């Protein structure tokens, strides 16, 4: 006899109904909001007909599991509320290598890719400590010169233009949970006393551009380089190119937006990973007003001899930007890491034709191949740009 009394049955039915609410509300949940918030396509419901389930049960059920995870009723609201609560109350970001502070400041402390992470506060150590040591600078300069020799072989002028990033702009906003030695070290890096100043002294032939003074001055404005971003956003990108053009006497495009920037949403950054806050607010200008024509999939041809010998590989994809309003006939190329997309159009507005290459996106052999087997370096100006120059391996494909 396997019996259940009536009240137990009623109890179980009610319990089942309550437990099933999140599943039953799947059709009513706002999945597009979650899709936008998480910046990905949510898992689709797998084909649940008997034939496909029996032929590939594990794959079907894994997909079903993912589908339920993605679509469960109330999940999106709970995630947002929980992440906000944890961030506000515990400073918890949900990612070990993103540390936060209650006022919304977020810092990525170590390389994003696991394989290049060596220590927990690698970025801060590199920028505020290692880079400030002479031995490190001498080694860095060796690599810089090696890449310069390669890049300038067609006669291009080479400028190493570096973006001052948050560890040097807002070290006072490092969370208290982080070791104090990092904020102390970062505060000591000033426009007069920094690695670029030192490296200029060590090798005056290398042209370094590093607007640390202008950035530190303006960083007090929370909308200049939003403190919830690892990458720069909005006005900081415009200031960078303004300073760059002034220093090297490049003419501004007539389309360069005049007047103050406007406060607006400028996109997402590491806050998206943490899942807190809204879209980043920053002060920005209308990028489309520059009128730059961007071809993201431009096939740059490899030289004839190579293409003939390797018919399957005749070109490499790069970003080509054409400026119909250029004040000169100059061509340029800019090598960047992930900081590049935010500044490339402003940079391209100074020249007629500009190529943008992200060695981290194109694989290293392809970058080397492109530089070796094409005339892409036959430009007037080549700029190598990376935040604070704290990532020497960035130069490897260019050497």
């Amino acid at each position, binding site marked *: 006899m396997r019996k259940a009394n009536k009240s137990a049955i009623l109890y179980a039915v009610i319990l089942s109904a309550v437990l099933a609410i999140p599943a039953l509300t799947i059709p009513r949940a706002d999945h597009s909001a979650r899709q936008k918030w998480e910046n990905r396509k949510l898992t689709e419901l797998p084909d649940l007909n008997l034939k496909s389930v029996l032929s590939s049960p594990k794959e079907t059920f894994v997909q079903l*599991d993912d589908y339920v*995870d993605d679509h469960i009723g109330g999940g999106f609201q709970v995630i947002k509320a929980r*992440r906000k609560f944890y961030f506000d109350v515990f400073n918890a970001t949900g990612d070990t290598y993103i540390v936060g502070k209650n006022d919304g400041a977020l810092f990525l402390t170590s390389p994003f890719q696991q394989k290049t992470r060596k*220590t927990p506060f690698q970025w801060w150590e590199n920028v505020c400590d290692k880079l400030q040591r002479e031995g490190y600078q001498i080694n860095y300069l060796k690599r810089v010169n090696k890449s310069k020799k390669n890049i300038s072989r067609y006669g291009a002028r080479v400028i190493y233009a570096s973006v001052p990033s948050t560890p040097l702009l807002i070290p006072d906003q490092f969370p208290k949970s982080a070791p104090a030695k990092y904020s102390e070290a970062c505060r000591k890096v000033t426009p007069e006393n920094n690695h670029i100043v030192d490296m200029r002294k060590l090798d005056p032939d290398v042209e370094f551009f590093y607007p640390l003074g202008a950035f530190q001055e303006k960083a007090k404005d929370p909308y200049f380089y939003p403190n919830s971003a690892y990458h720069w956003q909005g006005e900081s990108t415009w200031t960078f190119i303004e300073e760059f053009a002034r220093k090297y006497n490049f003419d501004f495009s007539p389309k360069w937006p005049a007047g103050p920037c406007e406060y607006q949403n400028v996109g997402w950054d590491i806050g998206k990973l943490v899942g807190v806050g809204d879209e980043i607010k920053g002060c920005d200008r209308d990028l489309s007003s520059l009128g730059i024509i961007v071809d993201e999939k431009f096939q740059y041809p490899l030289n004839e001899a190579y293409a003939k010998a390797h018919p399957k590989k005749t070109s490499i994809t790069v970003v080509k930007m054409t400026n119909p309003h250029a004040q000169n006939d100059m061509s340029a190329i800019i090598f960047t890491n992930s900081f590049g997309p935010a500044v490339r159009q402003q940079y391209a507005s100074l020249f007629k034709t500009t190529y943008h290459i992200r060695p981290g996106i194109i694989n290293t052999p392809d970058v080397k191949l492109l530089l070796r087997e094409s005339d892409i370096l036959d430009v007037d100006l080549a700029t190598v740009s990376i935040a604070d120059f704290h990532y020497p391996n960035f130069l490897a494909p260019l050497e």
Partner: protein
Amino acid sequence: MLFTSPLFLFMFLPSFLLCYFLFGRRNIIILAFSIFFYFFGEGWIVLLLLGSVLIAWLHGIWVIKNGPSLKVMWAATVLQLGTLFYFKYSDFFVRDVFLIGDASWTWPEALLPIGISFFIFQGLSYSFDIHRGKHKPAKSFIDVATYVSMFPQLIAGPIVRYGSVAKQLQSRTIRTGNLNIGIYLFCVGLAQKMLIANKLAVTADGLFGIDPALLTTTTAWAAALAYTGQIYFDFAGYSNMAIGLGFMMGFRFPKNFNHPYVAKNITDFWRRWHISMTSWFRDYVYFPLGGNRKGNFMTYRNLFLVFLVSGLWHGAAWTFVLWGMYHGAFLVIERLGLKNILAKTWGPIAWLYTFVVAVFGWVLFRADTLPQALDVAKKMIIPTGGDNSYFYLHSGMEIWIAMALAVLFASNFVERQSIRAMGALGWRSKGKATAVKMTVALVLFLLCLIEVMSSTYNPFIYFRF
């Protein structure tokens, strides 16, 4: 399908409860849902589970028709253990013990089916018990299959003996009281897993994941202590969820953990840790080897062997083997006289000895390789300074709270105090006690619900990098 997944909590469990309570033939419903549960996670490897059931059932049928036979019992045992050996240990023995093959080589199809150690051990205990005449074999394949494959304990125990559920498989009455206890235990288990173990896992995984050369004494201890908490609350949490589900279905599964970290010697620790496994090894390995009846030397040998095998049961790696031997060695040392000394020692000292031995044991258990285990243990023993920044990253306030909860709930302090407080408030009556427990369960469930749903957050990470 994990008990902590939305699919289980919001789809599988309500569907099961609804079918189980509304329709008759409850064992068939349990069996159908259990097969689906396993099929969901492992696909057609479910046939292996059913094969194990078939061996146990056929053995039972033989015993019914012909009486116990040593040969048949051995045949069933060899088949069950052979299956376990092939799927769980063949790769280890061939590669690591007999040193055959290179790094790129694995046994074909030697996948590790989830829960195989549990269902094979349940099938074996059925065979042993019916052979010894401890229990009557079940005639019905459904009953044996329900017993072996019951989804609550299928993937993480406890290892339920046939004897403890044989009567309930035939006859059980489910009352609201069973449901209340079941819900309470399930929620407590869920909270142990989601609110404590998963938080401590951040520290443990983070610190065990880095190069041991970068560890300091502080971070090595933090890693070991976090894992000590994680493994207990994770395992005890799963066991409590299983026991809770069993109660909801009208079964009484045995208690699997009894505050092991309050033990004052390792012998006592093993009476409190994974009780169902320890008693399985005691009854089916230690006693048949002679137990403590054949003199001191044989007792020590038997103890050591049992723990060596139990280490291997936990996983096919040298770290597990050594972990088993490590505990076996301490049990022998305690038998040699340390236990008597500890009994006369001041309680906190005896407790500290036991806890530290357990913690070092967990380092061996958790480490991916033996050199890693030795490195971590060395850092714990020899004071090593250096950069503690890994600790900052892997130990936020939420983890400190989880650690505090772990300390509080690893002991029986809360249990004793709450019973005392309810007595003082005059809430000893069944109704009031139930109301308190159900309120606790509800709060825990809501907190866990938030964690369960939040764990599904999965932003596309390369959107800018």
